[in-house]
């Protein structure tokens, strides 16, 4: 049991920096004790292999829970991109435990809304196998959400991704809905990701805000980079709320080759680079000068052909 005196001693420990190791162990022990009372220790965690993010999540992303990824859904691929990366990692994580991961159910927003339809070639490029993807395509967001607890209840799914687009509902509706999905997901141990515009009140395990990253190391043009490195996906991630953890903000990249999250560490947050846009363009390795030379060349050739 937690002892007041022990807690007091821990407080004293924290003043002494030389005893930080003992303090950490002690705090870990305390956390476990609180967790066992709270019923949170038994939960299954998936580390994201990004140290600050994992510590903010107190070990990793909780599986069998409802997570919310907020951001601009329309005219952006960032939220669905980050969700794809998380699901890809989840599938790898589940496959590593032995039995193959089940299918992924994705309930996308209506393609008429401006978000575009899911494109298998792009999902495959991020490492998610479209063959294991089941798409629930219904234009009514309310009916989609109503079917969600039925989906989350199903055994053997790897993950469920659901997009709620432009649904105007009371916070009471969302609390009930998320609680219902949460109970269904806990029973079946399916991880659910809700994608959409930020909501005021909810009972999700974690709430993330995803925005495109204009991080300097991502946008800076470097000729030595290969085309793949140049276009590594990156997101500006704000972990607004994590049960049992603390908020986090930072730029997270995705390494296409290894299928891992990376932390973009450069501290300076540059806006658009000072250089002119044209200078940072590459056209399959050619500089703009070479290209305009080629264009001139073609013009000359056509002029010559006409003269002949």
């Amino acid at each position, binding site marked *: 049991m937690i002892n007041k005196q022990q807690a007091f001693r821990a407080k004293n420990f924290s003043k002494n920096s030389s005893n930080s190791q003992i303090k950490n162990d002690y705090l870990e022990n305390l956390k476990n004790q609180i967790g066992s009372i709270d019923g949170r220790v038994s939960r299954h965690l998936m580390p994201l292999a990004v140290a600050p993010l994992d510590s903010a999540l107190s070990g990793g992303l909780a599986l069998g829970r409802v997570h919310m990824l907020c951001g601009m859904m329309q*005219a952006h691929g960032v939220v669905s991109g980050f969700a794809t990366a998380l699901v890809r990692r989840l599938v790898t994580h589940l496959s590593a435990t032995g039995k193959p991961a089940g299918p992924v159910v994705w309930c996308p927003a209506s393609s008429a809304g401006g978000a*575009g339809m899911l494109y298998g070639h792009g999902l495959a490029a991020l490492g998610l196998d479209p*063959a294991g993807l089941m798409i629930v395509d219904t234009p009514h967001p309310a009916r989609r959400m109503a079917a969600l607890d039925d989906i989350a209840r199903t*055994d053997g799914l790897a993950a469920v991704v659901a997009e709620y687009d432009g649904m105007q509902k009371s916070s009471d509706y969302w609390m009930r809905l998320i609680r219902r999905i949460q109970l269904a997901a806990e029973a079946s141990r399916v991880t659910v990701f809700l994608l959409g515009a930020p909501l005021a009140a909810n009972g999700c395990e974690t709430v993330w805000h995803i925005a495109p990253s204009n991080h300097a190391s991502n946008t800076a043009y470097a000729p030595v980079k*290969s085309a793949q490195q140049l276009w590594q*996906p990156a997101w500006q991630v704000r972990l607004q709320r994590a049960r049992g953890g603390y908020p986090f903000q930072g730029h997270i990249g995705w390494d296409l080759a290894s299928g891992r999250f990376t932390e973009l560490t450069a501290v300076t947050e540059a806006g658009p680079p000072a250089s002119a846009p044209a200078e940072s363009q590459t*056209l399959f390795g050619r500089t703009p000068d070479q290209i305009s030379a080629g264009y001139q060349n073609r013009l000359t050739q056509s002029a010559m052909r006409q003269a002949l």
Partner: protein
Amino acid sequence: MAVTYRHILYICFPYLAAARMHRHGATSVHPMVFVESVKGADRVVACCPLARRRGLGAGMRLADARALCPTVHSYSTDLASDHADLHKLALWARRYSPLTGVDEPANGIWIDVAGAEHLFGGVRGLMADCARRLRQSGLHLRFAAAPTCGAAWALAHYARPGTHILPQHDAMPAAAVQPVAPPRARMRASMRARMRQILAPLPLAALRIETDTESALQRAGLQAIGDIMAMPRAPLATRFGNDLLRRLDQAFGDVQESFCPLAPPQPMIVSRNFAEPVAAASDIVAMISYLADEMARLLYHTGMAARRLELGWQLVDGGRHCHHIHLSRPSRQAALFHRLLAGLSDRINPEFGIETGWMQAHDCSPLAPVDQPLQHMATSADSTAGENYASLIDRLVARLGYGSVVHLKPQANWQPEAAQQTMLAELTMPAASVAAAGWLAPTLSTTAPPRPIRLLAHPHPIDVVALLPDHPPAQFIWQRRTHKIIKASGPERIAPPWWTAPAGSKSRDYFRVQDHHGACFWLYRDGLPERGETAAWFLHGFFA
């Protein structure tokens, strides 16, 4: 001998296999033959009309057929499909008579039209109707009507087309029908005389006898049916066996012969009639539950499983309504039916009451009895846990509508919007790897062209500023918002398929760009400036 003469219609389809190939998209430019290996040599079993005109025919060796006609295409015979086609035709022919049968070895069907011909204006009218319908569907046919099965067979295969043996009054025009039918005995006598007259010149093969018997008869100088009709029966039986005489008697109706009529497929239907119309919600729920149980029991006892269920109900005013439920795989589990039908009772509007409810199973296929003997009697399971993936598809389809659960399938097409197709979800095993499935941009590939994760079904036009006509854009305006581009790669040129694209389709140059906020877009320029085409810019997708 009291043998009754009937009206047997025999229809023979000499080019059944060729018709099937045409139906499945084969072109009719090359002659086709269908071969079977007989004693180590490929022999032609069937051919197409074109090959027939070139002199090819059944029984010929494939090598000889090739020598006669070098352009011939040969296929192996598919007896199972032939039989299935004949079966379908015989079932179709049940529109003329309840007695139809399949003559499997000779690619024909029997129809016993006795007693049904008056519905079509006599046997001739029936034959004309039947021939017209079959020819419309692209089938070549030879047919004949005769009082016996044997005679009809012989006429269809060996007589001039259009030779029939019909009673006199039927052969006459309708206006001249005799008011009083001639006495039976006289009619039988005249019929028999005509049969002898018409069958006599036909070759012996028309009697459906063994090839060995036929060649033995030919060696003895007997060529036509007429030759053996006049001979004493005892020596014939001694020398050539009883089979010859039996076939001869069958042809003339001295021995009764009947074909095996096809059993019509039973519709899988269960129904419930009410003494008093029901309208209460609980009664409707009970009706659905009863029908689901009965249907599961029926399917179990017949060894079938259904892909589609139709629940129908008839109202007091006679209005009939129905609702269809699609399953992702054939099933006969009562628990599943209950679950899929659970939400339906709210959608049934009984108005003044329901008189009859029924449930019919469609698209049935045989299912081995893998489930437990008593499983079909299990009632709806109230436990919500343990639902598996397959039933999830069914539940979602039942809930959200047909076509709402789909899979993505790659297509071998460079046009981005045609490179993926949505297929109705079924229980398919995922392919071993992404590359094997045919997706364009598999992981770990550095050479794969970039593809967005979300694609706009209809590209949006944008306003673009570019340094030079064939440069990537420096900035673009979309939905009244300016995006300054800090990074771009491309172009990837995708030309329309000239063999299918409509006239005026232009090549596209695709660019992957990143704006100053960091968001990545997939833009393309429609039309090539260096060809002098007017260029328009479009936004087509979003990257992660």
